[in-house]
């Protein structure tokens, strides 16, 4: 017993330095960033870059400005752009990765070569990828000059320099839209819990809470929300077509990663299972949709989490591809950098960083919790 205690203590002491380092460098610094975001560091030029700046506490003012102040329209567009980018990036990587994995799973000849080619972009730095693709996507050259090689007219799309925006909506409509969306989501959760699991007290409670929340949100949207406009002017946001170039480059880089994940998953599916399904008369398509894809679901989820958090904080690729000055390909991480180091607005930069963190935490924390909890049950 004493031996066990002693070795537990040793184990703890071994891990302690890392705990301290991570505690400071991760959690401590996050705390500092949040504190900075609640100050006005940067507004007063005499203090912004001084040796020992004096700042005031301003509470959530920076956040209020970011979401509803006129001058921070760029931030709001960045948020919208990130959502669109994440969706397309995930779809592209998962789709292409899965396709390639399935193809390679058929064991073609030269399989190792094919695999290596599809995966090599992952070994490159985002800066290298960005540099190459920036050249490729120049409007008067690169990709637009490919069709002439086969006799077709040159492409006209302006890729990264495009100013076009589609699927536009007004930011002023956001609160109501979010409330409706949230209300419907809560309603769905309530229905699932109350219908199916009425017996379990915990789920019943959760269902009732969800139902209440749903009613509150929808009521607010219908009655009060409609008259409220956070901004004095209408502010249109949408999907910037310039992002198409960024999506292409990032899928080029990361599809191989997804492919490797899926290949590992596919190789984990027992041969007998496939044979059994084939014997029972499953056609190729059914084999995939009914048997294989569902078995790959955990990998899909895992890939979505990893890719999702990469896409939320993407910085290097956009910096190298379009530079920090192209508002049409701007992302929050890039905005944070130039707000802090060009505009000297440290507090606002910290606020953007905090918002990024919250977004990432929203998807990562539940996932981590479920993974680790599952492990305990192992």
């Amino acid at each position: 017993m004493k031996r066990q205690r002693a070795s537990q203590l040793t184990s703890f002491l071994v891990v302690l330095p890392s705990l301290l380092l991570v505690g400071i460098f991760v959690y401590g610094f996050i705390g500092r960033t949040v504190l900075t975001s609640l100050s006005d560091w940067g507004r007063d030029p005499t203090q912004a870059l001084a040796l020992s700046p004096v700042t005031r506490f301003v509470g959530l003012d920076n956040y209020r400005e970011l979401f509803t102040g006129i001058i921070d329209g760029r931030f709001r567009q960045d948020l919208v752009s990130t959502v669109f980018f994440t969706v397309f990036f995930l779809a592209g990587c998962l789709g292409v990765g899965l396709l390639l994995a399935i193809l390679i799973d058929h064991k073609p000849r030269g399989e190792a070569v094919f695999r290596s080619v599809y995966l090599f972009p992952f070994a490159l730095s985002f800066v290298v990828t960005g540099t190459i693709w920036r050249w490729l996507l120049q409007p008067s050259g690169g990709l637009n000059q490919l069709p002439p090689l086969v006799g077709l007219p040159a492409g006209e799309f302006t890729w990264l320099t495009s100013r076009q925006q589609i699927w536009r909506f007004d930011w002023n409509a956001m609160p109501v839209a979010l409330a409706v969306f949230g209300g419907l989501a809560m309603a769905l959760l309530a229905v699932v819990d109350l219908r199916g699991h009425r017996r379990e007290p915990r789920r019943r409670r959760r269902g009732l809470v969800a139902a209440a929340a749903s009613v509150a949100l929808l009521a607010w949207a219908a009655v009060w929300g409609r008259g409220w406009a956070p901004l004095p002017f209408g502010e249109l946001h949408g999907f910037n077509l310039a992002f198409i170039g960024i999506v292409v480059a990032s899928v080029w880089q990361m599809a191989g990663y997804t492919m490797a994940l899926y290949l590992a998953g596919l190789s984990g599916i027992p041969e007998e299972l496939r044979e059994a399904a084939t014997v029972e008369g499953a056609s190729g398509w059914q084999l995939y949709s009914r048997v294989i894809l569902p078995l790959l679901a955990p990998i899909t989820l895992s890939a979505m989490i990893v890719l999702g958090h990469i896409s939320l904080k993407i910085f290097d690729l956009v910096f190298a591809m379009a530079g920090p000055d192209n508002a049409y390909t701007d992302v929050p991480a890039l905005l944070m950098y130039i707000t802090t180091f060009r505009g000297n607005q440290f507090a606002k930069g910290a606020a953007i960083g905090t918002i990024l963190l919250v977004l990432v935490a929203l998807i990562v924390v539940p996932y981590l919790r479920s993974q680790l909890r599952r492990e305990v049950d192992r």
Partner: protein
Amino acid sequence: MSARGPVRRGWSWRWLLYLTLVLAVALFVLPVYMMVVTALKEPAAIDLTTAWQLPRHWNWDSFAQAWTAFLPKLKNSLVLTVSASAASALLGSLNGYAFAKWPFPGSRAAFAFILFGMFIPYQAILIPLFGFIKAIGLYGSIWGLVLVHTVYGLPITTLIFRNYYVEIPDALMEASQLEGAGFFAIYRRVVFPLSLPAFVVVIIWQFTQIWNEFLFAVTLSNPESQPITVALAQLAGGEAVRWNLPMAGALLAALPTLLVYVLFGRFFVRGLLAGSVKG
């Protein structure tokens, strides 16, 4: 030979399969072709309309120029990457061993505590980090970057080692335990000798990540201690860019990690797989 997927009758399907695969290869290799071709062209010959044509005269000058410009930065990157990889691997190994084989009350929480650090966007810690590195006098020094990359590499290295060590059967340790060996003795005698594959995976992974990293590099270095990614970004981001130089530079910057990938591809893939928390 038995095809692993559903049996396809006839050669037409195989034909389609190979066609798709080759097409995909072409798409993936296209940018590299462009990069190499542009790097080999003379600056005056680089015109957007003839971008896809092979160079008329092979101009190795850009590589020479990029090499001389990048040599000190390549050295910086090398020092940074090797030091930080080694340090984070070593610490990660000890941590992984502790978490996998010597759990203590709260070790699961401690593991989660460290693990979360893998996912944070670095923008959320950039400003205080900058202040901290400056306060301890390491701003502009390559060792500041080494410290930063070591600490932020701890979560992923700990994860990989811990997952690896969990697979080591306890029976291997029991014999030594009966002899009275403790934490460090077992590590030295049993675990460390078995760790080579994990070390390779971790060091290769960290090498790639740290070599390719940009945000910390651009914020915490000065012209003397700049790693290669920053030098490349500045080269390519300038005005009136003569694209042969950035392309040559990109090739040089990518070469080390590509070499690692080509030579150690197997371990590379393992590191990549281990990086997704599969529990």
